[in-house]
């Protein structure tokens, strides 16, 4: 059993290496895969496009420019690895990868400058880039996404999941998410729309945060920024207790509550309850302005 898998993996590896060594500009390979297996994809430059399908196999199609050494595809014990190999010296080329994977696979993509796009993947996704942009469709499973300077665009279908997104300078746009969100950026902008949120943690240093969505009963919402603005439009059937504080920013709201000052000290706070007050919402900035509304 182990030997036959190893032999299959080696065959695929040698075949793929041979195909590329012959100078082909396109690469194609299919390997059997488990329905709930693991797929790891890595690429430095170019693109990575991943889509989920119902077949128990991984299909790889790549267009390779000059400078790409080869593409390795191997599978072992339910884990399929697709790796674009660059030469050790000199500048590598670009590879445009189109990979189809069983839709329930656990997917990990690592890229440097390559842009990454996923669609139709319902398993857990872990997507990492340095400067490449990421576009992903949320499939109801957890998502862990990290980018240094790449921009991020996420689209869900309102299925609850745990979403963990962080960038250094990249902007984040999330539509129709649900469940739990933890998002952080230094100077990027966070624009988030959640159909139903149980927990939200958003943090920025200088980037603005825009949230629009509905909070589930008892939801916990926490957003902080040093100099970025916070613009939150959060509705909740069961209401929430809110606490807004800023050191030197302005506070405004759509329900005519009046912020209070701290005597002779700088700073403003706004506290109160909307509806039954089942949830908790906290917004904090140093110099960023805060806007709060209880309607979407």
């Amino acid at each position: 059993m182990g030997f036959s898998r190893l032999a299959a993996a080696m065959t695929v590896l040698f075949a793929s290496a041979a195909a590329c060594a012959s100078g082909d500009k396109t690469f194609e390979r299919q390997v059997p895969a488990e329905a709930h297996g693991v797929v790891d994809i890595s690429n430095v430059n170019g693109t990575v496009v991943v889509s989920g399908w119902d077949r128990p196999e991984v299909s790889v199609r790549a267009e390779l420019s000059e400078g790409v050494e080869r593409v390795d595809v191997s599978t072992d014990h339910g884990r399929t690895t697709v790796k674009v190999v660059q030469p050790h010296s000199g500048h590598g080329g670009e590879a445009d990868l189109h990979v189809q994977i069983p839709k329930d696979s656990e997917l990990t993509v690592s890229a440097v400058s390559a842009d990454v796009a996923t669609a139709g993947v319902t398993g857990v996704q872990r997507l990492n880039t340095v400067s490449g942009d990421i576009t992903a469709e949320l499939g109801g499973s957890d998502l862990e996404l990290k980018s240094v300077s790449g921009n991020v665009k996420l689209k869900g279908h309102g299925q609850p999941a745990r979403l963990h997104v962080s960038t250094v300078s990249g902007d984040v746009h999330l539509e129709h998410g649900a469940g739990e969100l933890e998002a952080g950026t230094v100077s990027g902008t966070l624009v988030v729309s959640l159909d139903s949120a149980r927990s939200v943690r958003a943090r920025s240093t200088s980037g603005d945060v825009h949230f629009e969505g509905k909070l589930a009963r008892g939801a916990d919402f926490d957003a902080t920024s040093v100099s970025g603005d916070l613009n939150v439009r959060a509705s909740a059937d069961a209401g929430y207790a809110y606490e807004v504080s800023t050191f030197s920013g302005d506070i405004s709201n759509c329900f005519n509550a009046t912020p209070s000052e701290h005597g002779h000290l700088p700073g403003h706070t706004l506290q109160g309850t909307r509806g039954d007050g089942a949830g908790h919402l906290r917004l904090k900035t140093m110099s960023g302005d805060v806007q709060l509304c209880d309607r979407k």
Partner: protein
Amino acid sequence: MSGTGSADERKVSSLRELSPAIEPPRDLWPQIEARINAERRSAPAAQPRPARARAVPPRWLAAAAVMASVAVGVWIGRSLLPAPGPGVQSPGSARASFAAAPTALDVAYVSDPRYQRDRAALMKSLQTRLAALPPAARAKVMASLAAIQRAKQDLQSALGKDPGNALLQELLVNTYQDEMRVLTDIHAASDAGRGI
């Protein structure tokens, strides 16, 4: 439970073949009870034990000591240290400032030696790591690091006006954490290029 007789050594093919109850060869309880009672009677006459009767594992003591020193450091930072002056850094020197030594307030807030060690190591390799990034990414990351630096200076300056402000203290701690995250991400990102 290991038997000694030849009958016990035969192979058992089913649980049903085992006896539902095995009586011990002799009843030990009367001896145990007598010994407990004897100890109880002699207890009042015994020497009083020191207050530290329950042995505390050394690792808990060490953890408690660390927590106490961290708490003292934070208290010193909040209560005793002079407020820092406004930032005096010119925009052109922002890059050099990333590697600047922590201020007294920094030390007070982040007094964990492991944090200091990790941060120093990340700072040491920062320039090399930045050079490994694609140029466009490098420029954006530099801007983000400058934003963090500005945020720290602004928060420290504001804390100078209002040292007990819990909001500013929380945001400053957040900013320290964000700085570490960015440094770690840059470290990982420059490794990713080599590893892929």
